[in-house]
């Protein structure tokens, strides 16, 4: 486009323009390739496979979509999960990711490129991270020019926080949502800068895509109103602001309501109220500006007093209505997750099921360094750069970083929202710093050359190539090298080959000129910083974030050891049990069981029904017989437990067991956490409480474990187990994986009732502790 606008080709400025455009396009392409390929470590080190838990659900939904089509998908009632309740998938899932991958798959197959659904799903995230880095370029370009844009794009392409959610195989909502988030912000800023309705409409559509993709869309619909409010308060109201905001609210809300999972929530829940409030405010402000334009100052004063008094009354009414609405709903109109955002202690106090997920915990300081690395130091510089001069766009990114820093402090997961903001800020900071340093070097070199040989004509033009080569030599740092030349290109665009003017400018900005040595050292340090960042990112991508978590590996003396127990047992379930058998396990493994083993599960990772999860938790923490009754009433045939004691796999069910107790106890009060703790300590050795040693989870995990080494040494808890030799009466072992990580038990069929035995049992129960058997099982 730049070539179009510039004067006829052939003149040197047109050539440099074209060169700059092509160069930045090439750099962007390389950034895209980088973003894609840095995420392939998981495929190379492990295999092309879907990762973790939620991606398996998304994968299953995508399979359904590709097999049955979009209409079936909307109406899909999944009876293979949450047995016997089932789940309306079409109405409870954010369909953005699934539809995106489904569309890609369909398009590829339409041109006879027979990729499997799995392959498409695995590579969706890397492809979209390339898109996300391009969107970052666009956004930062709108804020601070294309140099900063390229730097930010390069930083985002490899920011570890984002990599952790978008490696190949990590087929989760965030994979496309981050792209949608940045792109929506870009279109908002673009509309704000141009005041074009075209971009405003696109913005609403991008917002719609974001709503489709992730629950995090509420971040957008709160951040943008806040920015609008900020602009109004600081007196930056303009028609462009109105164009950028009003269509977004109207169209965006209408479109958001089209997504089944959001529906009327788009106008009913408190998360969206801020946008409506600001919508009213901006109209009031627009009206005031309009009236100001047509009235004389005197009349205007009168009008202001009139409007303010009426406006206050209206506001009071609106606030009263809002308060009434909010107060009438049980959680105050806020969903649990959002509430825990505002009050970080909310979840751990009231909702154990949210608190039990590790990614909903507040992050620790090292995780900031791990996830955004040197960006944490560059961000303040970026914020300062955004204030000189402060524009609408730069105030937006400042607001964005401030808000996202707060939210990331609440939940680890929202670190992901912080990452783009940090990249944008650091990109701006880096680009500005390079601007200043290279300009000073250029100036200082020019000056010294001037003073050395006065006789030489056109000193500055002679200096230019020398200068270029010297700066080219120093720019060996990776993303630095990428961002530099185009900045030069951009500069050439603006001041085509006119060094004197550059010089005069520099004279003007004399305050910014630094000594030559200092600039060179600073440049080198910046490059080193960049190199450190790159090394850290590659390390994080390769070592920390590429494990698929369903396959574990360990490096030992005799080579690589693979622990593929999960898939081993899922494969066993899928081939050797009846297709309609129900499998009970803790909810973590629900998605994987439905996707990999294709068996009906009782609970899964979509934790929508707390009671149901509590029932399973209760069963796991009950003694064998009570547990058998609960499971039998749920029509369960197999019980799956994950046990890491043999090989030392720490995230097994025994370690999660207290959450089962807590969640179970939250609904069925006869399960008391204190019964499982000895003096407040959770232990499974001989000091453990009898309740602990007799609960189903303990028994299923350690059944015949003692026979492996004679002592029953648990390598995760680093202790010998408490109860060693016991038999199972109501369950039988049907499968245990190679490293004992997954153990599957079958419920034994009910024994024929024998008169004498039944009597004996009765006697026993009446004398025993078990006084309230009816309470034990909620399902009878």
């Amino acid at each position, binding site marked *: 486009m730049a070539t179009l606008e510039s004067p006829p080709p052939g003149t040197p400025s047109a050539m440099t323009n074209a060169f700059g455009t092509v160069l930045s396009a090439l750099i962007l392409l390389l950034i895209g390739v980088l973003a894609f390929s840095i995420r392939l470590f998981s495929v190379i080190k492990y295999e092309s496979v879907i990762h973790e838990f939620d991606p398996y659900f998304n994968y299953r939904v995508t399979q359904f979509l590709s097999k049955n089509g979009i209409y079936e998908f909307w109406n899909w009632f999944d009876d293979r999960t949450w047995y016997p309740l089932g789940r309306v998938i079409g109405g409870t899932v954010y369909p953005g990711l699934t539809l995106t991958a489904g569309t890609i798959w369909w398009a590829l197959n339409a041109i006879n490129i027979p990729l499997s659904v799995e392959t498409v799903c695995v590579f969706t995230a890397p492809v979209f991270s390339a898109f996300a880095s391009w969107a970052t370029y666009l956004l930062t370009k709108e804020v601070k020019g294309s140099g900063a844009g390229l730097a930010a794009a390069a930083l985002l392409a490899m920011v570890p926080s984002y990599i952790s959610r978008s490696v190949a195989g990590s087929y989760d909502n965030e994979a496309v949502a981050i792209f949608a988030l940045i792109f929506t912000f870009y279109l908002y800023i673009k509309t704000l800068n141009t005041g074009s309705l075209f971009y405003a409409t696109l913005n609403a559509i991008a917002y719609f895509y974001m709503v489709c993709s992730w629950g995090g869309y509420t971040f957008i619909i709160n951040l943008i109103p806040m920015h609008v409010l900020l602009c109004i308060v600081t007196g930056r109201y303009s028609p462009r602001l109105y164009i950028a905001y009003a269509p977004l609210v109207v169209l965006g809300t209408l479109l958001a309501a089209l997504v089944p999972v959001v529906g009327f929530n788009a106008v009913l829940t408190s998360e969206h109220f801020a946008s409506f409030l600001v919508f009213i405010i901006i109209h009031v402000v627009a009206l005031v500006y309009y009236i100001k334009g047509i009235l004389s100052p005197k009349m205007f004063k009168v009008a202001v007093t009139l409007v303010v008094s009426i406006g206050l009354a209206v506001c009071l009414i609106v606030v009263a209505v809002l308060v009434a609405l909010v107060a009438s709903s049980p959680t105050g109109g806020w969903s649990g997750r959002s509430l825990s955002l505002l009050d970080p202690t909310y979840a751990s106090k009231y909702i154990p099921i949210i608190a039990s997920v590790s990614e909903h915990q507040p992050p620790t300081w090292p995780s900031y360094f791990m996830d955004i690395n040197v960006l944490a130091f560059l961000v303040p510089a970026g914020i300062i750069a955004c204030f000189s001069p402060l524009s609408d766009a730069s105030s937006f990114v400042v607001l964005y970083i401030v808000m996202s820093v707060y939210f990331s402090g609440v939940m680890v997961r929202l670190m992901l929202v912080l990452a783009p903001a940090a990249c944008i800020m650091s990109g701006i900071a880096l680009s500005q710093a390079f601007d200043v340093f290279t300009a000073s070097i250029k100036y200082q070199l020019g000056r010294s050359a001037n003073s050395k040989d006065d006789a030489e004509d056109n000193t500055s033009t002679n200096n230019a190539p020398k200068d270029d080569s010297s700066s080219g030599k120093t720019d060996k740092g990776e993303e630095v090298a990428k961002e530099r030349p185009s900045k030069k290109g951009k500069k050439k665009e603006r001041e085509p080959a006119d060094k004197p003017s550059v010089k005069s400018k520099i004279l003007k900005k004399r305050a910014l000129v630094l000594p030559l040595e200092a600039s060179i050292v600073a440049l080198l340090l910046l490059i080193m910083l960049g190199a450190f960042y790159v090394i850290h990112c590659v390390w994080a991508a390769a070592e920390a974030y590429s494990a698929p978590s369903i396959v574990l590996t360990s490096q030992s003396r005799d080579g690589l050891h693979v622990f593929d127990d999960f898939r081993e047992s899922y*494969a*066993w379930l899928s*081939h*050797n049990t009846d297709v309609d058998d129900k499998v009970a396990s803790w909810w973590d493994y629900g998605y994987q069981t439905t996707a990999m083993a294709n068996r009906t599960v009782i609970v899964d990772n979509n934790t929508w029904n707390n009671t149901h999860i509590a029932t399973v938790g209760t069963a796991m923490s009950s003694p064998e017989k009570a547990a058998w009754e609960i499971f039998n009433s749920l029509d369960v045939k197999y019980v799956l437990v994950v046990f890491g004691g043999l090989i030392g796999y720490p995230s097994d069910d025994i370690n999660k067991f207290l959450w089962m107790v807590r969640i179970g106890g939250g609904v069925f009060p006869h399960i008391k956490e204190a019964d499982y703790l000895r003096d407040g300590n959770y232990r499974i050795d001989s000091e453990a409480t009898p309740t602990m040693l007799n609960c189903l989870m303990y028994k299923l995990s350690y059944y015949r474990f003692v026979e*492996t080494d004679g002592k029953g040494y648990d390598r995760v808890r680093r202790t010998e187990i408490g109860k060693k030799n016991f038999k199972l009466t109501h369950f039988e072992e049907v499968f245990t994986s190679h490293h004992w990580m997954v153990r599957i038990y079958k419920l034994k069929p009910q024994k024929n009732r024998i008169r004498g035995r039944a009597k004996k049992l009765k006697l026993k129960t009446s004398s025993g502790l078990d006084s309230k058997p009816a309470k034990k099982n909620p399902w009878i």
Partner: protein
Amino acid sequence: MKKTSSVVDLLLLLLAINVLATPAFSDLVLSKVERRIDVTSQIARVTKTLKVVNSGSESVSEFTLTFPKFLGNNLAYLTVSHSEGKGKAKRSLANLSVKEAHPKGTPDSISFYSVSLPKPLSKGDTLTLEVVAAFTNVLQPFPEKITQRDIHLVMLQESAQYLSPYVVESQSLSIKLPNARIESYTKLENTKVQGSEIKYGPYKNLAQYSYAPIVVHFESKAAFAVAEKLVREIEVSHWGNVQVTEHYNLVHRGAQLKGEFSRLEYQDRPNPQGVSAFRHLLARLPPRAHSIYYRDDIGNISTSQMQSDSKKTELLIEPRFPLFGGWKTFFTIGYGLPLGDFLFASEGKRFLDISFGSPMIDLVTEKLIVQVVLPEGSKDISVTTPFDVKQSHEIKYSHLDIAGRPVVVLEKNNVVPDHNQNIQVYYKFSNINLLSEPLMLITGFFVLFITCIIYTRADFSISKSSAAYLAKLQWDEVLATLQEVQNIIQKCVAAHDKLEASLRDLSRTGDIQTCKAARKSTDSFLKDLSKELRPLLASLQSFPSASQISPKVEELVAKEKELQEKLMAKHTTVVEGYEKKSSGRDIENRIASQQQKIMALRQEVDDLLEFIDEI
């Protein structure tokens, strides 16, 4: 179920034999029958050597083979060859054609196969026939369900005497068992056990349809691996690769597992091979097989080992979990083969010569589907197979296909390793077709880039005469002119700098002549520039949209001119001062006021330049 039915079969057979006496078969006499049954694997492989003598009066061209129905139903493979010569020099000749026959008046409990002899057997002649037959499912696990600790026992039912429509003069039977652990066997006269071998006979001069049922009950450690369904896809690419993909639905057909599966006991067993579960399967792939993978629906299976040398590639694969009796699994293996080893040309046609069955050792396939995918554009497809298979054709769409690739589908039930013979698929293919897909891609990208070029070059505005469009065009022109004006002013400023430089030179060297020369050249240069500037300014004024800018530009030009004049004046003053040999201080004083004005003007010019720059 199967067992009871086979018992019923036996009874029927015995009944039928009593009734039977068909004269058509009476001409031939089997002078010697040797049968060897090998049950070391899950397949019962029967080898028979029959010495046939024509004792009738007419020459006979057909020979009839019989099996009890319960065996005949499970017959997977049967070949009959006749051998000539004697002793060691004996050599087998071509296989004879065998057809399933249903002679009239014969009982249902016997399966008949008629063999057409190479040449009619005339009176008194003898002929030696070699029969190889393989049966599946005849080793019945008994007991049918065992626990993990039990040994795996199977049962074989056969007849100690050779069931034949002919009189048998002398016969013997030997059964080769996998090991010496024999649970029980039917004892008849002349029964001997030698290690892992049981021998019945010799029996002399038995009538037609003699039958003596025997049951052998023994331990088997063989893997009873059965592929319920196996789909082999062989895709030929003329770019140099034959890709084979095999999808196995595997089941362990031995005695079913009863009760718990304990990993502990499974791992404790010192010798894990055999018993009630099998751990791995061995696939013998063709030499030079490459890019081998082994996976299932949910990803790669990491438990496999490969050994390869120039003669073969051996792949030892381990299913995800050990297979106990009745357990099932599914997996896929795939490998690439060099095209040159399998594709040949003959008489203007090409043919693919590749093995039909599974490369797994001792695997029984219940339903085998072989899909040979030929390159797009192949014609005149024909298949030759050494045995009967069901053939059909399909079309497959793969990478960038338009017409689709022709697929030959071959189906066969009950396949044993003996079926691993080569099949030939003949087709015609022209090499031009090879280039079609790359060319298509090239064209596609070419069109894409051309479209991009056209899109960026062409103007897609809706209205060329709209005011906004014209204004934009004009504005572009204004900007261009402005740019030029700016350039010229910059040049002027550069010239001023030069002038200043010459003054500095003067102060250092005192060389007045050079300074004057510099002045002269600068003068003419500046004059040229102002000449250039004039038309530009005029054109700028003519644009209505530039009305706001042109005053500024004019101001800039005026200021610049003033600056020029002042500079000249200063220059003149300084040069004069030097000519008069005034002191440096004097000159300095004289130009001080000028210098101030110059600085102010320069500031203004710079400001204006910046302003214009920002437009």
